[in-house]
């Protein structure tokens, strides 16, 4: 019987039993799997769908899968996608309107059912990113019903990082690598000589109930210590770091720093960084009608502060230059977000660094501004 806060171990051989127990509880399993040369999140059925024996090598503007010399299920850092894809989907039809001959108009919300996703393999930084998006999407006066429906039913199975990603800096941001509160189940994968097992903790009642159905043993002190040591490796081997102290004031004082000009000469304003970021939430909407003009709908799509359209008001865009758009993005992530939502908007996952086609690095940009700050 698993109890909240008391660790147990599940052997690799019983891991599929865990996935089965989750699926039996009515969840749709979503987890890491390999597609098009990257580890992405998608529907999974068994552990065979996981990236067994693969890791990712990441650096500015570069991502490559490489074989590990073991059969780890979660032996990588993070891929291009985040769970935002499921909780705050790239495209949602918000409502449909219809109109009859008298001009009467009826508008109906397209709120769909409540999917019950189980996210398997949530990293600590991603747990923080979900908590941050919770504040944005459902923490205010007007909770978004689409996000709420997906989030309410979600089961979060965290997997502590045991690999330090090349562009990761969660240690600097205080968001990892050990999963903090917010998970239903947390796992740490340990491969120790010939033995492959998971240290498990339940973080909620639903998590505990699922674990109770899985073959497991109480964790011994040595097993817990091995898990802690594995997480420490991830912390030590992160490829990036950022001095986050006083960063809000630093950026507020440096709107006119020459570094913004310098970075704008490299930035393509492609918006990749905003698409891969697990906290970026901005959207646009599109209205359309059928040919007869009797039915119309409104669709919400991810958008990026790097587009010209984003800040368009009659007469032109408020942020016409690349300089102002990069500045808006980074200042939002690291400074204004704190005023808006009470936390940083960056969890140090490193995705924006890895997936930037020209290897612009948020940690390097902060360091450059700090190095000769205007104050």
């Amino acid at each position: 019987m698993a109890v909240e806060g008391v660790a147990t171990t599940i052997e690799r051989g019983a891991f599929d039993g865990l996935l089965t127990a989750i699926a039996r509880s009515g969840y749709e399993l979503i987890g890491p799997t390999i597609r098009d040369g990257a580890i992405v999140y998608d529907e999974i059925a068994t552990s065979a769908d996981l990236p067994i024996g693969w890791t990712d090598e990441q650096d500015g503007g570069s991502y490559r899968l490489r074989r590990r010399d073991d059969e780890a299920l979660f032996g990588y850092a993070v891929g291009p996608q985040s769970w935002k894809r499921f909780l705050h989907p790239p495209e949602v039809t918000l409502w449909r309107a219809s109109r009859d001959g008298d001009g009467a108009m009826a508008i109906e919300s397209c709120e769909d059912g409540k999917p019950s996703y189980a996210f398997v393999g949530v990293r600590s930084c991603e747990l923080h990113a979900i908590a941050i998006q919770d504040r944005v999407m459902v923490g205010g006066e007007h909770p978004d019903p689409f996000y709420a429906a997906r989030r309410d039913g979600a089961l979060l199975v965290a997997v502590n990082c045991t690999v330090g990603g090349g562009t990761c800096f969660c240690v600097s941001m205080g968001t990892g690598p050990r999963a903090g509160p917010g998970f239903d189940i947390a796992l740490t994968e340990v491969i120790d000589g010939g033995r492959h097992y998971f240290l498990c903790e339940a973080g909620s009642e639903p998590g505990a109930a699922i674990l109770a159905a899985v073959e497991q043993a109480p964790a011994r002190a040595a097993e817990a210590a091995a898990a802690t040591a594995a997480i420490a490796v991830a912390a030590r081997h992160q490829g990036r770091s950022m001095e986050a102290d006083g960063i809000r004031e630093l950026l507020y004082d440096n709107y006119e720093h020459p570094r913004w000009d310098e970075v704008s000469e490299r930035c393509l304003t492609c918006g990749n960084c905003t698409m891969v970021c697990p906290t970026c939430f901005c959207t646009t909407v599109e209205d359309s009608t059928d040919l007869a003009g009797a039915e119309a709908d409104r669709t919400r799509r991810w958008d990026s502060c790097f587009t010209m359209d984003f800040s368009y008001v009659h007469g032109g865009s408020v942020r016409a230059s690349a300089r102002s758009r990069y500045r808006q993005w980074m200042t939002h992530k690291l400074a204004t977000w704190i005023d808006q939502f009470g936390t940083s908007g960056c969890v140090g996952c490193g995705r924006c660094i890895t997936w930037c086609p020209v290897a612009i690095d948020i940690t390097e940009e902060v360091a450059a501004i700090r190095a000769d700050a205007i104050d």
Partner: protein
Amino acid sequence: MTPRPWRVTGRRRETADSWTLDLEPADDGAPMSFLPGQFNMIYAFGIGEAPISISGDPGADRPLVHTVRDVGAVSAAICRAAPGEVLGVRGPYGSAWPVAALGGRHVLIVAGGVGLAPLRPALRAALERRRELAGLTLLLGGRTPADLLFRDELEELGADPRLELAISVDSAGSGWRGHVGVVTTLIDDLDLDPARATALLCGPEVMMRFAAQALIGRGMDRGDIYLSMERNMKCAVTQCGRCQLGPAFVCREGAVMRYCDIERVLGLREV
């Protein structure tokens, strides 16, 4: 996030490109109560939504009144909506002019062009409570006399002893007896006790910036100057991220904001 249907019950032409619409609920729902300065998202079937300030009298909750200038696809479709047609409306959203705090103050309303629309509810509220105020002044700017909104009402207000009214246009024909020049020049001629004044500004951003600076030049406190801001906006509930103005969301902290709170970002380019 889902608009309610409202039927157009009245439509008046204000200028060559602006119209005022009266709306009544087209469902069983209640009429809308709002605070002066708040706005609605108005939906034209199949074309899109636009944030539009409420320009009606806050004392009367019906009809719901908006004044719209045709500048693009959505605003044109809203302007075109004839009586009987139905628009979608959701709101009200955003902050309000500080009408409850105007007692004992000289209320100075400075409007440029269609900027008078969001100020009209504040003006009506101020007239309603005129006896409690130390003074009430409306400074109004437009491109030409024909570009002024609410001209019948202005005619009456010109003769209203409760209000001091000055109008300035950028250019005018020989029939014009008012000022010619930018609205900010009217501020220089104003009889003003800066410690007792509260200024409410709405118009093009440059105009508001210059007006605020002129008022500060006359000795007014930055905290007594309020501006109604505009930014691109899709959701009006802080989730599309588009209306950010530094740390503020114009849809939540605004549209009405205190000058002292936004002076810094307004002074920077492209924030």
